[in-house]
Structures are given as structure tokens and as C-alpha cells.
């Protein structure tokens, strides 16, 4: 997993609430057996019409936001399906950070497994960031995970906080499975105990 330390880039505003994972990556693209290559279909049904032409009104099709690396989104981002194809598609497009007032649980978890930083901030702060993002490509935001601070294009700073374990893993690009496998003896101990306590499992 790629480390996440500090990111400075264009933020795209997506104020719609309840953006679900079906919108982020529609089901017809889940048939892949790879993790890569989904960026071209990110937000497919919003980005393209039925004939595959770009919808010029969609934010990521506008010249200012084609290189966006941050999304500022409406409440409850990533609700619905558990598909990890959603963060894979965001990452493949180039999005490394999503900021919203709240995230759906599974999507939130999935982001951390892929080097994407989801940040939860109060409505008034998200409103300021949304406004800043609306200024276009010259409004580059900085997200600093070490300091846990977002800085707007005009220098306003907002603190955020991330679960310490997840922050540690992101900052160092650590693989969860490797970490857990170091605890193999604890897992075996638990299994031995359960074989007596709940043998039917």
C-alpha cells in the first residue's frame, strides 16, 4: 500500500448527499478480477451519457477538476454496497482523499486498506472546504496527515483526527495482514480455547 503523508492538490466539490457505491462504480464494472483499471469508469453513469459521451456538467469532466486528487462530498458518502471497487476506482482515477461530514462504515474501512484518507469534519468546516473547492484548479488544498490539518487555498487551517492505528498504517504504508500474522500464536491460543468452550463452531 502506498504511504499517505501529505497531499497538495485540486479538490472537486460534490455536494450531493448519500453518494452510494453504485454511483461511484456501477455494477457492470465489478466483473473484473483485477484491482486496477477502474478509474476510467469512476462515477460512470454521472460522468457519461448512455452513448458513452462525457456529460459536460459533471464536476470531474470540467477542465478545472480533471486532475482532482481530493473530493469534498455531501453527507453519508460511500453508502450501500461493500464493493472495494469503489475505493479502487477513486484511487485509479487519482483521488487520494475524501472529505465529508460522514461516511458509510464499510467504505470508510475500505479506504484505509488502499492508501486513501477519508476525513470526517463538521458541517460548517465542510461548507468552507466546499466553497474553496468550488473556486477551481487554482484552489489547491493541502491535507497533512502527520499534523492532521487541512489547509485551504487561502491558508485557513482546520484540524481533523484519524484513529491512531489507522493513521500509523497510512503514514507507513503498512499491510494489515502482515501485522496480524505476527500475532499467530495469540490466534492459535484463542482457537485452542474455543475448541473446548464452543466445539460446535
Amino acid at each position: 500500500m502506498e504511504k499517505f503523508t501529505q497531499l497538495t492538490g485540486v479538490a472537486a466539490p460534490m455536494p450531493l448527499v448519500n453518494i452510494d457505491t453504485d454511483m461511484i462504480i456501477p455494477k457492470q464494472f465489478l466483473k473484473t478480477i483485477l484491482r486496477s483499471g477502474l478509474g476510467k469508469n469512476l462515477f460512470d453513469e454521472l460522468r457519461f451519457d448512455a452513448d458513452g459521451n462525457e456529460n459536460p456538467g459533471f464536476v470531474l469532466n470540467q477542465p478545472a477538476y480533471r486532475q482532482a486528487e481530493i473530493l469534498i462530498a455531501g453527507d453519508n458518502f460511500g453508502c450501500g454496497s461493500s464493493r472495494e471497487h469503489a475505493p479502487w476506482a477513486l484511487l485509479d482515477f487519482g483521488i487520494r482523499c475524501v472529505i465529508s461530514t460522514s461516511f458509510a462504515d464499510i467504505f470508510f474501512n475500505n479506504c484505509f486498506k488502499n492508501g486513501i484518507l477519508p476525513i470526517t469534519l463538521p458541517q460548517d468546516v465542510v461548507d468552507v472546504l466546499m466553497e474553496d473547492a468550488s473556486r477551481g484548479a487554482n484552489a489547491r488544498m493541502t491535507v497533512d496527515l502527520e499534523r492532521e490539518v487541512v489547509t485551504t487555498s487561502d491558508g485557513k487551517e482546520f484540524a481533523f483526527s484519524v484513529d491512531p492505528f489507522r493513521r500509523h498504517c497510512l503514514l507507513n504504508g503498512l499491510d494489515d495482514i502482515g501485522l496480524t500474522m505476527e500475532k499467530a500464536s495469540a490466534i492459535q491460543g484463542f482457537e485452542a480455547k474455543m475448541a473446548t468452550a464452543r466445539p460446535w463452531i
Partner: protein
Amino acid sequence: MTAQDKPRTLYDKIWDDHVVQQDADGTCLLYIDRHLVHEVTSPQAFEGLRMAGRTVHAPGKTIAVPDHNVPTTAGRETHIENEEGRIQVAALDTNARATGVHYYPIDDVRQGIVHIVGPEQGWTLPGMTVVCGDSHTATHGAFGALAHGIGTSEVEHVLATQTLIQKKSKNMKVEITGSLPPGVTAKDITLTVIGLTGTAGGTGHVIEYCGQAIRELSMEGRMTVCNMAIEGGARAGLIAPDETTFAYCKGRPNAPKGEQWDAAVAYWKTLFSDEGAHYDKVITIRAEDIAPVVTWGTSPEDVLPITGVVPAPESFAGGKVAAAKRSLEYMGLEAGQKLDEIEVNTVFIGSCTNGRIEDLRAAAEVLRGRRVKDGIRAMVVPGSGLVRAQAEQEGIAQIFIDAGFEWRLAGCSMCLGMNDDQLSPGDRCAATSNRNFEGRQGRGGRTHLMSPAMAAAAAVTGRLTDVRDLMAEAV
């Protein structure tokens, strides 16, 4: 009172019994008793294992079945037309056989939707932790099992270690007092709760459903309720196990037998929330106040009784105003329109929410002696091959066929339209599934969620219909 004696919720108890290790910051390594696997969210996980030279830690606790993109028409055992779908199903087949997990291939009569197969085969039991790379894993909470969806990286983590790195959620109680009125079902309960709390209302929580109306539900009904806990944003839904649960589990192929059964039941009887246990959020609804409901928009929280009208976007607040406007435009509806005048051209009965035998019985009850209205495409997709076989045995299949329904093979089908069962742009569907998101059932397709009985009623009249009207009418 020591910490040990502190009253605990059902969730607290299951959680405590599965903690392998806890760090100072509260991060836990949680043991997973059952891991369900399907073809769409697992290929990258198996590939990851191979690349890292890792093996499946506990194949005996892992169950694999193809469901998401299998066709529901005859001949699928030998040929799947869609190439990508075929490759995914073949990849699951290869991975399942190579790793020695329990596997129900496409030609096995026990194949079906993973959340229907697990309980049916007795893999899901009270007090367990159950995960699957699918958000509707919440279904298994009906047994008093802590069950939730995970992403593919976590699928790989569970395959490799049989554990997950987790932090505990908060406790939320949803109590449904009294008894459900006639014509009102488990689906109406779960949709009504989401309508009240919103799709983010349960975020960060595990919901325990309780109260008389929940106790009075069958296991099938309880699975319907818990299935949609995720649509309310909750990590999981739970219902304390009781005699109804034990009776359902007893004799299932993988349920314990003999002395082990007795020991299991003794343990299961300890799985309830203690008097005075703390809940961070409590919602109470009177069953008498629940009506047959339908959704009007593109979020499962867009729920109203069938007797209502399409709401005006301005009646909402904040970001929901714009979202509701967008929903009405997508759905082709006008504020003020009566819900029971909305015409449909498709009816879908099935899914992990409502693809069990009781769901098919409820729909067949409405359809007995009636016909699907001309011009409507109506399909039933049983949740598993065994549900299908039972429905055929009970004569239910014949009722559907006589009424003009397509009688399909088991799978997820039009719930998410990954196979060929999809809506076309502008199609409007009465569906017993769980999500009415834009494009979910097919690009441009419009979905109204409801119970199986309500979907059957819509098939008969060609419009969203109060099933109680048909119940009152003699055939």
C-alpha cells in the same frame, strides 16, 4: 459491581467472546467464526494470498457459493454467455477447489444467494461472528450472530488469519412494540425504521431489534429485518436468539447434533441483553403505527405508507432538498402524486432480503386465482435451489406460473442486475430487493422497494397497490 458484572447488551457479549487481543487504544483483533465468499468480491483476495505465498487459515470455516452474476435461466451449468461473468464464476470454482473451503457450485441444488444458503445449511448459528464481502451480511444477525459486510482487503485478511482488526461500535436499540396489523410484514418494519432514522441513522452503531413484533416474526422475517440494517447505516443488526431460532437451526446439515446441540443451546440461552444494559441510541415504534410502505425516491430512506403522496423536495432540509429533487427527476415523479397511482411495468420478487420460502408464500397468497396484468413483466427468483424445490413441492411455483410470472433459477439477479436480469431505461419496477439507487437494477431503471405481498399486488393491478385492498376482495 465489577466490570465483569456490568450489564451487557447482546452485542457486548458476542464481541467479548471473540476478542483475541485488545490494544491500549481499543483496537481489537476479532475472531471470525464463519466467512462466506462469493465470486464478485473474492478473486482479488485469493490472488493477493497467492502473491504473498499465504494460505487459507481455516478452510472449514469458509463457505463459497456463486450468486451475484450467475444467470437465472436454464443451461447455466454448462455455459454463461457473459464472458467476464463466466471468468469470475470460474475463478471462484478454481479458488474454492484449490483451497478446500466448503463449496456449493452452480450445478448444486443447494446453490443460491450466499445469505440464504448460510442459514439454510446451518452454517449460521447464534453467537457467531459472520463476515462476507457483501454488505447484506447483516442478514445473519437474525440468529443473534454478529454479522457484517467487509471489503475485499478484509476478505483477504480473514482468509489469511480468520480474524479482523476492528473497533467496537456503539449500541443502538430499535424496539417494535405490539403486534403487526394484517398486511404488514417484516419488510415494512425494516423500511419504516430506515424512513425514520435515515440511511446514516445507524452509522457507527450495531442495532439490536427487539420488542413483541420482532419476537413474533419467523426466522425468515427476522432475516428480512436484519438484512436492511446496513441500509440504515448500521454496522450490523441483531436479534436475540430464542425458541424460534433454535427450532430453525435444529437438524440443519451443519448445526451441532446430540450433546453438542445441548451445549450449544445452553450457551445460546445466555445471549440476550442484560437488564439495565446501556444503549447509546434508542428508537421505539408501535407496530400498530406501521403500514404497508413503498419507496418513492432513490434512497432506501425515501419511504412512505402506500396511502401517501410523493413528497415535495422543499419539505426536506439541508442537502436532502437537492437530493430529493434529483430523485424525483430520475424517478419521473411529481410532488403530490398519489403513490397508489404510480404505474409499473416490471415486478421482481427475490433477493437476500425477500427470496426465502415465506416470502414466496406471501406473494403466492395474493396471486392465487389472479393474473399478472397484461403488459407487465413479472419474475420470481428464489433465493436458493432448495427454496425453489420447496416452492415447487408446495405448489407455489405453479401459482406463480399460472399467474404469468417467470419462474427462475436461484441467484441475486435483478436486485443488482449484474447478470442479464436488468431494467431498461425508463422501466419502473416493484421490487422486493433492498436498494433503489439510481441505475442499481439497470441504467435508467426506476425501483420501488416493498414487501413480497405488495409486489404481488402491484403485478396484479399494474400500479403500486395497497395489498390490504386485495386481501379484502374475494377472488
